[in-house]
């Protein structure tokens, strides 16, 4: 890809925009179309584009595989942890009403936290898949 200047320059410009758009989809998810899954896929797609143009090694330096494991597990913990917090507050598992005095505010906080957990796990898992398939033959 070294000789494709156009691709390299465009990618440099596009990747940050894709990542920001992913975050927009993530945090807009509780009001409009979007949510954690879509955001996670878009975020991972941004990194995949970077890897396709600059090489998997460069992508691995930018987003190491170790982080992805932490991200995948951390997302599950954030999702389930939100539920545990509402249990500790005396409500049922994942009852967001417990998260704030006002039920509406509680539902907002709950859905944002949970969707962020989904986004983290989806990003982590999709990129892990990509690294495994792109790096066939090498082990880490």
């Amino acid at each position, binding site marked *: 890809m070294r000789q494709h200047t156009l691709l390299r320059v465009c990618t440099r410009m596009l990747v940050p925009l894709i990542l920001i758009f992913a975050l927009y989809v993530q945090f807009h998810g509780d009001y409009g179309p979007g949510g954690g899954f879509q955001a996670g896929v878009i975020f991972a797609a941004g990194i995949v584009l970077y890897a396709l143009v600059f090489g998997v090694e460069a992508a691995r330096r930018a987003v190491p595989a170790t982080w992805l*494991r*932490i991200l*995948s*597990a*951390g997302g*599950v*913990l954030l999702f*389930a*942890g939100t*539920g*545990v917090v509402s*249990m500790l507050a005396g*409500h*049922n*598992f*994942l*009852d*967001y*009403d417990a998260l704030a005095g006002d039920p509406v505010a509680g539902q907002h906080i709950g859905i944002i936290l949970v969707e962020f957990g989904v986004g983290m796990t989806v990003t982590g898992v999709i990129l892990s898949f990509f690294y495994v398939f792109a790096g066939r033959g090498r082990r880490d």
Partner: protein
Amino acid sequence: MTAQLPALQILLPMLASALCVLLRSPAGAWLCFTLATWASFAVSVLLVLATRSGAILSYEMGGWEPPFGIELRIDALNAFVLLIVSGMAAVMAPFARSSVLAEIEQTRVYLFYALVLLCLTGLLGISITGDAFNLFVFLEISSLSSYAIIAMGPNRRALLAAFQYLIMGTVGGTFILIGIGLMYMLTGTLNMADLAERLPAMADSRTEKAALGFIVVGASIKLALFPLHAWLPNAYAYAPSLVSALLAATATKVAAYVLIRFIYTVFLPERAFDGLMLSELMMALAAIAMIAGSVVAIFQHNVKLLLAWSSIAQIGYIVLGAALVTTAGLAATTLHLLNHAVAKGCLFLALGVIVWKTGGARLSDLAGLGRTLPWVGAAFVIGALSLIGVPFTGGFITKWYLLVAVAEQELWLLAGAVVLSSLLSIIYMGRVIETLYFRAPSQGTTRSEPVPVLMLTSVWLLALLNVAIGSYSEPFAAIARTAAGQLLGGTP
């Protein structure tokens, strides 16, 4: 906190699974696994105590009331299955430490434990949920993680075995999903209790019969009921020892639970069994499974394969009791879920110690080990006796209950099949025991260090449990009767 127990039952292994990934160290992951399984066992004991008198616990996930939200619904049968699954995992946790270190690559041990915990989460989730679609989701969680842990087996053939299981398991899962989709199309609800109320109005529609057909076939694949059993022997034989033991003791039990739950609670037995000849079909397949599984087991040289084929025969007993549509039959089935789990778990764990010691599970690897490893050999013999159904072991209790239930219906041919299958099991277990005690030890390379105490603890806990249930089965039998009564008494 009692009100939160149903959620904790699934949450504990799920959170522990994520923690394992973060911990990364093999020892830390094992500790996390052990604590999570013990805690979840404690929860299931409390749930059994709460439901054994016939009470039903309902838990609204996220505070959304059923049938709109997801409901966890626990009656005597659920609680009993939860007890089996979490109890088996808890007992096997001490065994896991050395066995997993010996069989799984060091860098992958933490991922292995994370996947085993996810598989447990799925199995417990299937057993606890009162929502049909939620059941499918948990089924996929447990299936996907079990494909991965089977593929981690030490032999390259584990990959092919896992792939076969993946294909068959996916077909099974999809069939169940199609069945659930058809029911949703008919009634617009996914809550099992609500489905049971609404389905009778659609009783004569072809869609309902198709839904039942899809679910029965799908669950039979996961259950490995003859002739849909082809995936099971290799999957159990080439998986890591812990996985063979754990899946043999729990996964097929949970699949049997799914079959029983859908037929008895969602479709209601009178409609499920009338007109479709489901009862006769299940009895015939169960009888073939009992005999064919045992006959094939006699000719196996790999003891893991032998035990796997014997599982197929034992699944026959489980299905036979469920097909009788009587309280006695269902009670026998429920009890056999426990007794087969304990007996097969004991056998697979004892075999796991032998694999740890010699590196193989062929009959020739076992030669003479009864003398060099007396404790392991003795535990294997107890497990084998229970599998055969000798008095004072758990296996005898269920065979007795099953024979009584079959005799009640005057199905003498089936009673003959049960007895014949037991006689055949004497032959195949006898071959193994003969090799263990009366053959000269082979000159293979064996590990020189003694068998770890933790491994022996697990094996002997299960061996003693076999004897304990065989000598005093009343508490479990009482739960089984309550469960059978609830299943036949309409909605849970």
